[in-house]
């Protein structure tokens, strides 16, 4: 059941909201929470009921471990708890990838790619596993101020707005909200209006913008073998905009839904394409995932490597490699792999890691400060290259696209510019996608309009506290709602649901 499907918008959501708020008013916060937990289980089971067993096992095991660690921390207990999570995640998400690569290295050829049989990746497994591992580590550190009971724990993991694809929430930012709700001092309906506004913006981004521009990205990547320079650039720009509007649209919907229930969920996107450098970009793109990796992977590793480096070396370059380059690269390789079991995702992480390391090195030793427009363009270029790997089904596809983007030989003109081509002696006849002028114009318009919107659309998921009712706001929201509902008939799955 997608947020952008009719059954969600017109049946599931209104019924769940009604049940939640009625129970909250008449039976208290805990009854309302029980209702959302039940609704969330139904929501999850809608895709594939057997996977309910998996998520319930995961929650049961982790709940047990969290309580045990909170009362009595211990290294072995923590390791076995993390092992439990990594084993589940590893089996369902990485088993085939691992076996295929081992087989490739050993090379007995017994396992052909794909011959292992498909394991369907359970929806949202990367997201709910991470959320639970973060809580386990916090519990072991004694950083959980109120240990959750089973109901609070289930609400924390299962709450359907964030269950499938984040934002990756931390227990510490939810615990006070749960306590207030249980004491009947929750936000009630006071955030409902802003929630509806944020949700509608997200729905519009997803249904109208992301799904609208998807065709241009899909065509470019499916005709990767014969693509030319202009088409490749158009394709990757279209895909980057699709990815941004798809996932930030989903995240807006999640935040908006949370608000409708009276919960504040963290921001996931902060207009990332305005980023002036790579460090800035990763403060703005998929912020809750970056936060998770920074807190639980990067910081501990960087700190111990820095201590080691400062103790044993005096050369600044060596310290930089140990304290900065190594932890960043490991963190980003892991975050790439977190997205999916494939070498394309590993390289996606590596490209971003390299970009960040360069950025830090430049801050340390760069003699001049780059002008904004240049550093913005370099940042975007790095991001676009990494997105080629992110989107491509395999490395061959990615390299075909990149070759077309950067090889001058692939610079061909479409045939409707024939007169110009003849005049300048450029080849023109082998351009397939843009052979129709109308297609090229449509693609161009989509990329330009969405590019502008990606920089200038207001970020209501960030500023919902300041939203004041006005004619302009209500006109904008009704326009977006009207457009989105009109386009609902072809719902497409969210890109991040595969992770």
């Amino acid at each position, binding site marked *: 059941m997608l947020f952008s499907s009719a059954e969600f918008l017109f049946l599931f959501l209104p019924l769940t909201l009604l049940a939640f708020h009625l129970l909250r008013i008449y039976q208290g916060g805990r009854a309302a929470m029980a209702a959302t937990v039940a609704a969330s289980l139904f929501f999850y089971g809608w895709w594939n009921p057997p996977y309910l067993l998996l998520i319930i096992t995961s929650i049961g095991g982790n709940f047990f471990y969290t309580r045990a660690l909170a009362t009595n921390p211990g290294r072995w207990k923590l390791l076995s708890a993390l092992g439990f999570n990594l084993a589940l995640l590893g089996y369902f998400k990485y088993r085939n990838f691992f076996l295929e690569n081992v087989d490739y290295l050993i090379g007995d050829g017994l396992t052909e790619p794909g011959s292992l049989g498909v394991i369907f990746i359970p929806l949202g497994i990367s997201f709910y596993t991470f959320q639970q591992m973060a809580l386990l580590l916090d519990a072991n550190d004694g*950083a959980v101020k109120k240990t959750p009971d089973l109901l609070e724990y289930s609400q924390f993991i299962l709450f359907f707005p964030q269950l499938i694809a984040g934002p990756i929430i931390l227990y510490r930012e939810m615990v006070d909200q749960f306590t207030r709700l249980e004491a009947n001092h929750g936000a009630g309906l006071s955030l409902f209006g802003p929630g509806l506004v944020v949700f509608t913006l997200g729905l519009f981004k997803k249904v109208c913008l992301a799904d609208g521009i998807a065709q241009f990205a899909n065509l470019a990547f499916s005709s990767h073998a014969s693509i030319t320079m202009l088409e490749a650039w158009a394709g990757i720009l279209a895909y980057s905009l699709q990815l941004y509007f798809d996932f930030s649209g989903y995240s807006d919907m999640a935040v908006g839904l949370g608000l409708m229930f009276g919960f504040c969920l963290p921001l996931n996107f902060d207009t990332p394409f305005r980023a002036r450098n790579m460090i800035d970009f990763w403060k703005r793109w998929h912020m809750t995932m970056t936060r998770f990796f920074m807190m639980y992977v990067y910081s501990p590793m960087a700190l111990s490597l820095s201590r080691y480096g400062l103790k044993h070396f005096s050369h600044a370059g060596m310290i930089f490699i140990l304290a900065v380059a190594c932890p960043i690269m490991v963190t980003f390789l892991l975050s790439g792999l977190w997205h999916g079991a494939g070498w394309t995702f590993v390289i996606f992480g590596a490209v971003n890691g390299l970009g960040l390391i360069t950025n830090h090195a430049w801050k340390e030793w760069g003699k001049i400060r780059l002008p904004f427009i240049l550093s913005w363009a370099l940042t975007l270029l790095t991001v676009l290259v990494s997105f080629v790997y992110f989107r491509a089904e395999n490395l061959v596809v990615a390299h075909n696209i990149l070759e077309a983007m950067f090889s001058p030989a692939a610079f061909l003109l479409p045939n409707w510019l024939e007169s110009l081509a003849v005049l300048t002696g450029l080849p023109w006849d082998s351009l397939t996608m843009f052979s129709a002028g109308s297609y090229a114009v449509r693609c161009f318009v989509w990329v330009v309009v969405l590019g502008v919107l990606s920089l200038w659309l207001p970020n209501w998921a960030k500023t919902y506290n300041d939203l004041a009712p006005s004619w302009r706001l209500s006109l904008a929201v009704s326009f977006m709602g009207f457009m989105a509902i009109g386009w609902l008939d072809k719902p497409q799955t969210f890109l991040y649901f595969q992770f």
Partner: protein
Amino acid sequence: MTPDDILEKLTDVFRDIFDDDTLTLTRETMAQNIEEWDSLNQIKLILGCEKEFEIRLKPRRINALQNIGEMVDHLSELLN
């Protein structure tokens, strides 16, 4: 060491790392208020504090702090 002393010493550490002698900290200052704050500077801050106060900090514990006020409380807990 009083919380005020800690805040003063902390300000010195911050000024040194962010290379800004006009930087002032209050209990309400958050990471978002300092533009140059990134993951690497956070590591430098932890190391700077460890040196200044002669203690050892745990990174995950520091990550959980919301603002400078909580940092001061955490440090005074460790120091006293």
